[in-house]
């Protein structure tokens, strides 16, 4: 059996984390390759539905990352996002969607090393948790029906 390779999707803001991830690369820091990055103007734009859709399409883990508080390019996008994450996380927890599978972080444009660390540790966490089969079962309902 081949070892489980977590599929991880990262939603990051353009100004801080994306630049930070760039720096990770230009600094030649090696880190796990399991992550697919989607760039957004701001964490304030990262709708919770995007996270749900990621699980629905087969992601095992998700990273959401943006500018540190007070560093938002648009002044307050990340503050709004933080409130939304607090609420969303509470709701997911209530529903039994494993909140350990979503890593939120602040990574600035200067924190290339932190980005590598976030990705590596998230990959490790997800590797331990294993594939998100519970959600896959729910999302794959129609395909299961087909075999009936």
């Amino acid at each position, binding site marked *: 059996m081949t070892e489980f390779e977590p599929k991880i999707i990262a939603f990051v803001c353009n100004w801080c984390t994306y630049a930070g991830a760039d720096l990770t690369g230009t600094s030649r820091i090696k880190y796990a390759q399991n992550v697919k990055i989607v760039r957004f103007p701001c964490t304030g734009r990262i709708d919770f539905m995007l996270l749900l859709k990621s699980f629905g*399409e087969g992601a095992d883990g998700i990273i959401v990352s943006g500018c540190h508080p007070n560093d938002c390019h648009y002044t307050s996008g990340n503050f709004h996002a933080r409130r939304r994450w607090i609420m969303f996380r509470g709701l997911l927890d209530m529903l039994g969607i494993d909140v350990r599978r979503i890593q939120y972080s602040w990574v600035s444009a200067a924190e290339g090393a932190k980005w590598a660390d976030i990705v590596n540790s998230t990959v490790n966490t997800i590797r331990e948790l294993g594939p998100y089969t519970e959600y896959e079962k729910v999302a794959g309902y*129609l*395909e299961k*029906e*087909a075999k*009936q």
Partner: protein
Amino acid sequence: MQTENYLIRKPSLEKLFNNLIGSGKTIFAPKAKGKLALFDNVKAYGEITEDYIVTANSAKSVVFPRTEKLFSYHKSKEKTEITDAANSSFPEVILWGTRPCDAAAFIPLTDTFNGDYKDIIFNSRREKVLLLSFSCNKSDDYCFCTSVNSGPGNTSGSDVLFTKLPGGDYLAEVMTPKGQLLVRESIDLFEPKPEEDKDRNLAVVANRFNQKEIQAKLQNLFENPVWDDKSRACLGCGSCAYVCPVCSCFDIQDEAHGNKGTHLRCWDSCGFGLFTLHTSGHNPRETQSARWRQRILHKFLYIPNKSKIAGCVGCGRCSRSCPADINILETLTSL
């Protein structure tokens, strides 16, 4: 076919259930959920509730699931392959505990799916459903089956109709060859027909209106204040249509995952504003009252005019489930 009547004793009924489960059949029966009873997949006789007038959901989903695959596809640059859902093997389902109104609803449903174009997916499912109905021994203010050519002991649509007799045993009326087959397979459980009169053991459902009169009145009632009046509290949800055992309007939707996907049929309701909305923004039924009128006219004028059958079985589910207490019987009797 000639109806066959038997007596089946209370303990034998449970044995019949166990025989069916034992032979690998899927059984849907009323299960208690809070104050409601819902048709649900049951595995053990003890899960079934007897304490219900009708279930909150109708039994139509066994032949017309709320989400159903019509076909699936697989796309590649060179070609597109389609897998026909009609080729799947549909499950044999026994509906246990349907009421006469539930069973009667299969008649207009089957009619809709077979008019002009035959829907073979529906028909394949329908063929595999066995209806073991139970006569009603109680009713409530919402029931009006007797006004739409049915009744608490009506046999149409059922394969077997059980009527509870004093003492807890049941009269079994076997209506169809399918029902006959079921009886033959467990013949030792059935005894010669009892003397007891069936009608005395049925609930009383008062006759509330004359269907023919309603039909005649509706012919000239398209513009009438009654539609506004009776629909004013309508919230525009779809619960009336979704609990209705006859309503069969649907939506067709595609769901894709990468280069694969499915083409689905999903329930829809004429009560939704989006139902008739054109992409241009034009909506032929702009107001909620026009939508309420459509629901009534479709059931009590259009279907009876076209197919000579009732488009409503009088189960009263729509009124019971309406969050705004809009009562269909009230609308009909106020015309």
